[in-house]
């Protein structure tokens, strides 16, 4: 039975690429509605593959994806109206200006023209993107591209926002603005599913965290329980941080040898 409290459910997702690499091994997880969910793992752990499967850009070998309790079936594109994506590839229509792109995306999401224009203007202002800049997005800096990408993902006020490393390559002010926006959206009912390598940020910002290692889920818990879990795993009374827990879970006893010449 679908759990109405979960906005996103993945059940037994399996994915093996043509080169034999097993990207996902029976991945099962549930993202509670209204949560800010941090999905972390090493490079190549399977995070991006998971997101691409949710977006329908990669096919899983087996398993199900449910959004709002409804399994995604082939041909169903309606769910895309309820989701906003910031994917690993920065932007797909980078020959447009930021204003053109946001207006266009808003309209493609079904917003009335006037509303799309209004939200575009507000988003450009909010993210400090020059409203009169007619340069194509491809000429923007990495941080600016990321901001445009995020603006496009939230212009239609989706129920679920899926972000692949949204804070990578952007300045502190923009990161702060993004976090504030996402927190506000979560407080108003949207759910955020994001990947990140910045574990301090995940620990402070997310309400729930999952650790993926070699395609397998090794931990999922609310971030308030992290200190206690870390303490148990590290066998320390005063607990530990998410970073310590993460290192312990994915690296285990395999500690790096220090560089001999340092």
């Amino acid at each position, binding site marked *: 039975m679908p759990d109405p409290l979960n906005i996103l459910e993945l059940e037994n997702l399996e994915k093996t690429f043509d080169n034999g690499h097993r990207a996902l091994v029976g991945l099962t997880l549930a993202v509670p509605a209204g949560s800010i969910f941090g999905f972390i793992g090493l490079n190549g752990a399977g995070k991006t593959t998971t997101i691409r499967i949710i977006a329908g850009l990669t096919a899983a070998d087996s398993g199900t994806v449910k959004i709002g309790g409804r399994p995604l079936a082939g041909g169903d594109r309606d769910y895309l109206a309820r989701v906003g994506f910031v994917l690993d590839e920065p932007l797909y*229509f980078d*020959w447009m200006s930021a204003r053109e792109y946001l207006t266009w995306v808003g309209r*493609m999401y079904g917003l009335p023209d006037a509303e799309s224009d209004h939200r575009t203007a507000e988003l450009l202002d909010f993210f400090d993107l020059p409203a009169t800049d007619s340069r194509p997005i491809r000429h923007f800096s990495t941080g600016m591209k990321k901001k445009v990408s995020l603006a496009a993902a939230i212009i239609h006020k989706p129920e679920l926002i899926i972000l692949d490393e949204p804070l990578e390559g952007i300045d502190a002010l923009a990161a702060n603005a993004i976090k504030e926006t996402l927190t506000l959206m979560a407080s108003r009912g949207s759910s955020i599913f994001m990947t990140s390598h910045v574990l301090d940020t995940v620990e402070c910002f997310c309400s729930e965290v999952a650790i993926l290692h070699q395609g397998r889920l090794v931990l999922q818990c609310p971030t308030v329980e992290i200190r206690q879990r870390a303490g148990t795993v590290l066998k320390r009374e005063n607990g530990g941080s998410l970073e310590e827990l993460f290192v312990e879970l994915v690296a285990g006893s395999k500690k790096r040898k220090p560089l001999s010449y340092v």
Partner: protein
Amino acid sequence: MVEWRVVQTELRYFFRDPFTAKWVPLTLFAAILGLWPYLGSVYIAIAAATFIGMEPQYVHFLHRWPGHFAGHAILPVSWDRIIRGKNLATILETVLVFGVVSILTLFVTPDRPSWTESTHAALYLAMTVPLLLITGNALAGHEARTGAGVEFGDAAAALQMMVAALVCSLPFVVLVYALQLMWAAVLFAVLAIFLWARVSIPHTARFVQQHTPVLCQTP
């Protein structure tokens, strides 16, 4: 239903495509070919230049630039509407290019085409463009390139387009020139438009929907 925002975007990209400059040599090609006395009609040269240059719009319309396909795949608009929009933009662009290349070519060629020749040119477009759209829709999901530019694959695709245009011109040659059955030619055009709108587009949309993950793997 047509997704007019897709039509707008396609038209906008048509004018911003860095390879728009290709129309200069192609117009020159049409003008030089148009001077050839054995050609029959200057419109043959104009059509050849138009269809060669329009190959990306006919065949390569899902992957015009890296990420183009994925960009549409994550938006909640049906592939039927997207493909209809893209095809409609292609028709508008073909008419525009055919018109502009005609003006420039006719400016430098000494012979003036007759009224009948111009009517035949319009009928030729009405008969051939839907067939080329059907061909392009059938190939689009199978022959994806990374982007459209000036590499070897693009030249090969242009050659393939020329062959496709030649084959798609056969009904016009047979009905208008050989049999001189104008009514049959008009009927053929109507039938071709019907097939394109009611069979080709829904079929292509279903194919794209079923093969989205595969099509996304195109770099």
